[in-house]
Every structure is written in structure tokens, then in C-alpha cells.
């Protein structure tokens, strides 16, 4: 999921600073091979840390990610939280996982199946072992596999010992025991001390993949600075794990994953929700406007509220409203006041907002609605991912109610898409829906940090001239109506949800006017379409099969397409950021391919739209499991279609 040119381009974002793949040098220390060990090269490694939710697996995963990024690898991550806040320790429901794909090549996804599984207890093993690659490495904490935990996970015997695991390299390590031993003299309670065991696991893995642990040590110092005994404890355990790897005879091989070819720049890891928050903030700042977020907490959108609430010194107002309706209404009220109003939620909350979004369509004020989709319908699978709110976004309001719909493709693309959403909202005076999802929201990847000065301009014109002012006198090009800040003398006017008379904005029940205004609202979308950059195609511009995607499936599709292209197949990919309106050149592109495949984590929503728009007999590949596509699932389907 690195920030390479092809992907940025494929998303049609030429406005963002150009990045170029070039020679690279990562500022990091090289780690010498451990004495007496073989060192092998690997292109890519997929590792999954799994344990009880109390075991700190998310933290372990994140730190290993940072180490890998600093080692110059391209990376992609996938956290997997349990649905319960604190499910009983040791149960299947309480298992928490974090998967990382780190590579010397370009990374598109967190990887289909792990090469390495770290399992801190039997439940973690049971939930995850099925995914481990044949011949993969299993690193288990022996102490976690006690009778109680085995029973909670529903194991009759101990799978680490009874040979039931099959084709897997099993490394059983006394992680808890060694952790406790290392900390013996610190007089920590047993509970506190054994909580450090995740750092032992991290230490072992860091050694195994030749990662430097200095940054983690620094991070420990920072993170626990208020409790120095924990700094000491965690640091000791981390080093102990590392040295265990180095000295034990268990491991004969140490692996190395060389740095990837990554465009020069300054990087950091961001999750989709952080990137989205930054995109909104940057756009508001570029436009010179305060930002107002009216929101109500909901998984997996809440983190945007948490993030933006920290930006107060940037002129960001966050309002945790009493419900989703108040969230969007307050944002619209702020927009009326000349502020950029934003509201965030997930599917069920967006459903509640639709009546007010429709008001925004009618009063033609800028407003950005972010839908961080999750598994549905109804409460559904709140902590799982899905991309099934496209219908709701495009069609989900009463009457003909057109508005632009954009979707982000990767965690970092959330930045770009949020920025673009704000730009369109302001330029065209319209609400804009931005679709992200749980996978992007929580997934992280390296972000090539842009310079604020180089971001595209977002001009804002607040009308102040009373002469010739009419609330619905439109800009001839964008069809935007004027934006006026209350407080501007002489421009007092009234807006509302009843049909407006063209130009004057007065209430009008005239049949002809209603038709005119309905067309005007539709025409505004046509104007937005003119603003969409040419669709970029990964692969040839014509061929046997075109894969059309949107949203978080980007990585899996790109990797699958590369894979089948490597086998000489005439397959290309386009990935849509603009879902409403669709890019004007899309119909032409579709016709240049014999078969069009639309993989979606839903029952075929983009598929419906493409078929209706272009009468193209596209076929769907649909996965509704609350989980992203595996590369192999898409590649397999492509190959079967090419054969069939």
C-alpha cells in the first residue's frame, strides 16, 4: 500500500503533489546477521499477531509496523478487533488480531494469509490457524496454553503437542515464563509483569526479521514516561525477546526483507480515519474557513470525531450532538453561517441523516457527509467492514435528490478524497457524500506527507455586494448559488426546504419551476462531471477483461490484476473515486473490453449502476463476509472468466 505513482494516478488525482519513484535511501541502521545463524532474503512477509484482547496485540502489531516502515519496507496492515469491549479472557470471542504485510516490493494489501502467526493463547490459535500458509511459522506462548485456556477455546488436548496442527513449523516459547523471570527483581505484581509478554513476542519477531528495536525502545520510554517502572520492564522484556531469538537454537534462520523502492519523501503511518481527518482539516484551512464537525459516535467512524476534537487551535469546532440528525443539522447550520460543515457516521447513522441531507440538497449549501461503512444491514456487524452503502448514498433519499458521491481507495487516499470532497462541496455549493469503510478506517499504511502549500487551492467567495443579489442566481459554469454569511448587511435572505423559485429563492409551487429546479439540481452534477480528471487505467487501454472497482477493494484488485497480467493476460483495472457523477469517459472505456468484472463487498451495487448507465453486461464478484477480498479470490475469478 505504498504511495506509488501508478496508484495515485489511477485514482485520478493529478492535483496532488507529484510523487516519483526514484532511487531511495532510508535513514535507518543496518542490522548485522546474528552469529551462527543463516540469513535468508524474503520479498514479502505477512505476519499476524493474535492473542486475547487484553494481551496488547494491536500495540505489538503497530510497533512492528513502525519498525518495518523505518526499515524501509512498503507495508499494509489490518487490525481485527473483537466486537465486545472486554470479552471474557481466553474465549474465542475475545481474540484480537493484527496483520502486517511488509515487503521490498510494492504492497497493495495486508496479505491474503500469514506466513507467520503469533498466538498467545489457544483461542487465538483456534481462530487464526486456518489462515496460516502451509509450512508457515507458528510462534506460540507455551504458558498461555494452560488447561483453563485450552478448555475455554474448546480444545480437548493441547494442539501444540498432539500433532494436530499439520504442515506448520511450530515454535513454542515460554514467553510468559521468561518475561516473569526477567522482571523478578522489579517487584511488580504477577499480573502487571505478565502483561509485558507481548514485548517478548515483539522482541522475538524483531530479531527474526532483522528489525532494529531502537525506535521501539524510544517509544516505550515515551509511552510509559509516567510510570518509569513500566519503561524499565517493557524495555527489558523487549530486549530479552530479541536476545532469545539471537541465542536460542530454536531458530536456525534469520530473515531479511530489503527496503522497497519507495518514492522519496517524508513518510508516516496513518490510518484511514486519521488521514480523512487531516484531509478535512487541510481543506478547511486551505479554504480559510473554520471547520464544524457535528457528529454522534458510532463504530467505525468515532475516531474522526476524536481526532478532529484535538484540532481546536486550527479553528475546528467539534460538537458531539444528541443524535445523528442533530449532527448533520448542526453541521448544516454551521455551513449556513459560512463555516464548512462536516458530519461523520456509519450506515445506520447515515440512514437517519438522509432527511436532513435532502434539505442540504434543496438549500444548496456545502456540507461533507462521511460514511465509514460497516457490515450491515441494521446494526449488523459493527466492527466488520463492508462497502454496501453505495445505494444508500446515491439513491437513498426521498424524491430526485442528486449529490456527488466520492469513495476513498486506501487509508492514505482518505486524505485526498476528503480534501476533494470539501473542494467540490464549496465550489458547487452542494452536500457531498464521502464513502470510506471499516477496513480503511482502521488500516494503516505509509503516507507520503504532502506540503500544505502545494495542495490545490480552494477558493471561497462570500458574496457581500447587495446589488443584483438573488439567493438562487446561479454561477453559469458551476450552477452554484451565492454563499452569503449572515451578518452581511443588505443581503438578508431566507432559505428552506420547500421548493424554491429559480433565481429569487422564494417559495414556489409552480409546476414548471419545480421541473426547472429539479433539472438544475441534476445539471449541477453534470457540471461536477466536467471537473473529473480522465480515468486512469492500470494496464492496457483495451483488452479481454477490465476490473472496475471502488473503495477499499483497490489493493486486492491491483495485486490480483498484476498477478494475472504477469501471466500474460490482457487484463486492466480502473478504480473509481467518483461514483456520482461517474467520470464522463467511463462508458467509452468499458466498451473497449470484452468482459467487465466488478468485485464488491456487497451484493452488486456499483454493478447495478454501471449496467443501468452503460447497458454493459458486467458481472459481479461479491463477498459479504465483513472481510476484504483476498488477492487469490479476485485473481481466481478473473482467470475463470477468461477461460469461460
Amino acid at each position, binding site marked *: 500500500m505504498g504511495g506509488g505513482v501508478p496508484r495515485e494516478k489511477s485514482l485520478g488525482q493529478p492535483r496532488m503533489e507529484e510523487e516519483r519513484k526514484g532511487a531511495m535511501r532510508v535513514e535507518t541502521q543496518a542490522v548485522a546477521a546474528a552469529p551462527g545463524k543463516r540469513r535468508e532474503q524474503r520479498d514479502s512477509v505477512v505476519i499476524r499477531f493474535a492473542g486475547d484482547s487484553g494481551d496488547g496485540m494491536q500495540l505489538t502489531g503497530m510497533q512492528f509496523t513502525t519498525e518495518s516502515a523505518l526499515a524501509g519496507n512498503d507495508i499494509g496492515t489490518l487490525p481485527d478487533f473483537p466486537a465486545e469491549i472486554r470479552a471474557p479472557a481466553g474465549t474465542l470471542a475475545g481474540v484480537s488480531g493484527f496483520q502486517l504485510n511488509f515487503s521490498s516490493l510494492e504492497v497493495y494489501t495486508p496479505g491474503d494469509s500469514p506466513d507467520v502467526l503469533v498466538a498467545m493463547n489457544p483461542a487465538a490459535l483456534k481462530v487464526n490457524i486456518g489462515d496460516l500458509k502451509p509450512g508457515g511459522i507458528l510462534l506460540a506462548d507455551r504458558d498461555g496454553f494452560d488447561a483453563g485456556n485450552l478448555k475455554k477455546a474448546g480444545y480437548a488436548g493441547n494442539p501444540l503437542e498432539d500433532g494436530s496442527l499439520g504442515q506448520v513449523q511450530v515454535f513454542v516459547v515460554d514467553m510468559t515464563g521468561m518475561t516473569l523471570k526477567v522482571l523478578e527483581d522489579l517487584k511488580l505484581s504477577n499480573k502487571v509483569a505478565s502483561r509485558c509478554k507481548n514485548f517478548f513476542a515483539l522482541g522475538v519477531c524483531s530479531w527474526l526479521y532483522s528489525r532494529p528495536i531502537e525506535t521501539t525502545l524510544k517509544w516505550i520510554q515515551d509511552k510509559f514516561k509516567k510510570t518509569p517502572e513500566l519503561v524499565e520492564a517493557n524495555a527489558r522484556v523487549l530486549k530479552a525477546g530479541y536476545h532469545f531469538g539471537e541465542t536460542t537454537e530454536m531458530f536456525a534462520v534469520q530473515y531479511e526483507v530489503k527496503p522497497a523502492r519507495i518514492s522519496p519523501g517524508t513518510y*508516516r503511518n496513518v490510518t484511514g480515519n486519521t488521514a480523512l481527518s487531516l484531509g478535512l482539516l487541510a481543506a478547511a484551512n486551505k479554504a480559510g474557513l473554520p471547520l464544524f464537525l457535528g457528529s454522534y459516535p458510532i463504530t467505525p467512524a468515532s475516531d474522526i470525531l476524536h481526532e478532529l476534537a484535538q484540532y481546536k487551535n486550527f479553528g475546528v*469546532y467539534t460538537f458531539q450532538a444528541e443524535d445523528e440528525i442533530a449532527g448533520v443539522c448542526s453541521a448544516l447550520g454551521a455551513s449556513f*453561517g459560512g463555516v464548512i460543515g462536516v458530519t461523520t457516521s456509519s450506515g445506520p447513522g447515515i440512514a437517519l441523516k438522509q432527511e436532513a441531507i435532502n434539505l442540504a440538497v434543496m438549500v444548496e449549501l456545502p456540507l461533507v457527509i462521511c460514511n465509514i461503512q460497516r457490515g450491515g444491514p441494521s446494526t449488523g456487524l459493527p466492527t466488520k467492514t463492508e462497502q454496501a452503502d453505495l445505494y444508500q448514498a446515491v439513491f437513498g433519499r426521498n424524491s430526485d435528490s442528486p449529490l456527488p458521491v466520492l469513495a476513498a481507495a486506501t487509508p492514505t487516499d482518505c486524505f485526498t478524497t476528503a480534501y476533494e470532497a470539501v473542494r467540490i462541496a464549496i465550489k458547487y455549493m452542494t452536500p457531498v457524500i464521502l464513502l470510506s469503510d471499516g477496513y480503511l478506517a482502521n488500516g494503516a499504511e505509509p503516507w507520503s506527507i504532502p506540503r*500544505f502549500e502545494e495542495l490545490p487551492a480552494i477558493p471561497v467567495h462570500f458574496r457581500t455586494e447587495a446589488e443584483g443579489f438573488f439567493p438562487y442566481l446561479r454561477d453559469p459554469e458551476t450552477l452554484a448559488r451565492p454563499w452569503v454569511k449572515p451578518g452581511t448587511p443588505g443581503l438578508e435572505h431566507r432559505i428552506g426546504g420547500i421548493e424554491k423559485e429559480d433565481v429569487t429563492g422564494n417559495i414556489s409551487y409552480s409546476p414548471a419551476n419545480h421541473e426547472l429546479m429539479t433539472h438544475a439540481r441534476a445539471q449541477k452534477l453534470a457540471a461536477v462531471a466536467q471537473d473529473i480528471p480522465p480515468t486512469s487505467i492500470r494496464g492496457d487501454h483495451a483488452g479481454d477483461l477490465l476490473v472496475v472497482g471502488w473503495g477499499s477493494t483497490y489493493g486486492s484488485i491491483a495485486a490480483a490484476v498484476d498477478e494475472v497480467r504477469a501471466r500474460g493476460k490482457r487484463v486492466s483495472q480502473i478504480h473509481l473515486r467518483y461514483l456520482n457523477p461517474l467520470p464522463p469517459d467511463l462508458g467509452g472505456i468499458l466498451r473497449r473490453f470484452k468482459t467487465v468484472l466488478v468485485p464488491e463487498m456487497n451484493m452488486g451495487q456499483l454493478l447495478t449502476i454501471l449496467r443501468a448507465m452503460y447497458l454493459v453486461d458486467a458481472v459481479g464478484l461479491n463477498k459479504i463476509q465483513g472481510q476484504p477480498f483476498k488477492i487469490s479470490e479476485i485473481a481466481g475469478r478473473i482467470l475463470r472468466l477468461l477461460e469461460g
Partner: protein
Amino acid sequence: MSDAAVATAAPKLTRKDFVSDQDVRWCPGCGDYSILAQVQKVMPELGLSREKFVFISGIGCSSRFPYYMNTYGFHSIHGRAAAVASGLKISRPDLSVWVVTGDGDGLSIGGNHLIHALRRNVGLKILLFNNRIYGLTKGQYSPTSELGKVTKSTPAGSVDYPFNPIAVAMGVDATFVARGVDVEAKLLQDLLRRAYEHPGGTFIEILQNCNIFNDGVWETLTDKATKADTVLLLEHGKPLIFGKNRDKGIKLGSDSRLQVVTLGNGTQEGDILVHDETNRPLAYMLAHLETPTPIGVFHATIRPTYEEAMSKQLEAARQKLGPGDVNALFKRGETWVVR
């Protein structure tokens, strides 16, 4: 900070400055006309220039109000005026934001936004026109309609025990709670002025006659012949006395309940309770008084407003962290350089 304090020096305005060019579309005889007239009369006297006023409403006859005010206005959707207005007021505390709503708009579908706005003390000036009926949808009962009321949707009489809007506001700790009457022009003007000056959110229930679907619902309170005996005017610091001969009053019983007493026969003016706007329990008790029906200011107290506290947080953050450097924010956390 009172909204009055943000007043800018403005040229002297008149009532006509606040009359918009739209035809007023209420039924002839509707109580809304009088309310509109009082608002248009008071606004120019407040010393704030016209463009600083915003009227926000939901849907209902009453919610047509903004169209008739030559100020900024937003006729939103049913029940959501307080939410829309909250967003505006929080991000634009310099504006004087008025909310016009009805007993259906504000207490039925919009009840939640109303009570949350009041508890937060967002500085909205809320006018709730209570005609105890749904006017615009042609006469269904509302959450303030009497038990047993026969309407289109309750042909056998309503079985819904009604809200007492003043008690609701007191239950959510609103900082300014008052009741006016459409035809009591002077009182209404006073209340509007008081609301404007109150540094925070205000709630005024205005008893309003819908002469089409609920004619005469407040008649005993507005009929010249009866009103002296049915209405109790609340005045801070003055004893709660009423009656044609001002010979009746309100006493606090030892059981902490209010009693209506007649002066004379051993009861003196000194026994009569003196109205105290700052006394929350008293306001709650008065809210439940039906005969006489109190009008005027039940309760007024001062508490920081939401928008003030929020603005202070933004200011404090700016003081502490500087005005916000986007490039620095981008680089927060662990970064690395690829050359």
C-alpha cells in the same frame, strides 16, 4: 457575555426594517400575526443591526415565521430547528439566533433537540408557539393537547397525558423559562427584550390561538371578562397576587405545595409568596399551577453558555499551541524520510 454586548453601533431601525417582502400566509385571525408584530416591533429597539439576526424554524404554521422577517432566515425541516440553530450559534456566536417552533415541531418530533439545546445552554432564543394542535397538517392533536381532546386523529378523544412545556424546560435545567400569550402584546415585548438580554439560551412558551383548528383554546386566559381571575402575572420580587380585585394570592403550604388563598380573613399580603425568578423549585411548582395560569418569567439564572465555553477552548488551544500549523500536524508522530 450577553448577546447585547455584541451589539454593533447600528443606524436607528424601525419596525418596517424587519418586515420582509413576502406575503404573510397565515389564516386571517391567527394568533401568529400578533406574535410577528411584537417581534417586529421589539427587534429594532435592541440596538443590534438587522443583519446580525437569524431566525430558524422547523415546519408548521408557526415555522413560516422566518419568511416574514427581513433578517437572515432558515426554514428547515420538521423538528430540527434547535439542532440547525445550535450549529450556527456555536460556530457564529456573534449572531443573535432565534428559533421559532410549534408545540408539534418543538415538543413532538423535535423534543429531543429542544431539551438538549436547553440543558447545554446554547444561546438560542427559542419561541414555542403553543396552540395545542397541529395546524399545518390540518388539525391532529399535539403533545400539549388536553386529555380527551377530539381531533381528526383522535375521534374518540386523546388518551395522551400532555406535556407541560414550562415543567419540561425546568426538568432539563433551562436557564431562562417564560410564558407569554399571543394577544398580550406588552408582556410579549417585555419577554422578547428579556430573552435578548439574557446571557444564554431562553425558552418562551407563547400561548397562541389557532382559530381554524383549535379556536378558543386559551379563551379563559384571554377573555377580558375572566382573565384577571385566571391569569397570574409573575413579577420578580413581587407577591404572587391576582384577581379582578387583586384579592387572591399564592401561598406556600407547609407540605411544600402551592395553595391559592383569598386575602382577608386572616390572610395578609405578607403571607403571600414573593416571586423569585432564581428559585428553581418555585418555578417548577408554578409550572404546575393551572388556575390561575402564571405568565411572565418563571425562572432566570446564569450559567456559562455552550458556545462561550467552546470558544474559550479554541482560544485556549490557540494560546497554548499557536494558531495551527498544518505541516506540523501532518508530521505528528513517527516519521521517516525516503530520499
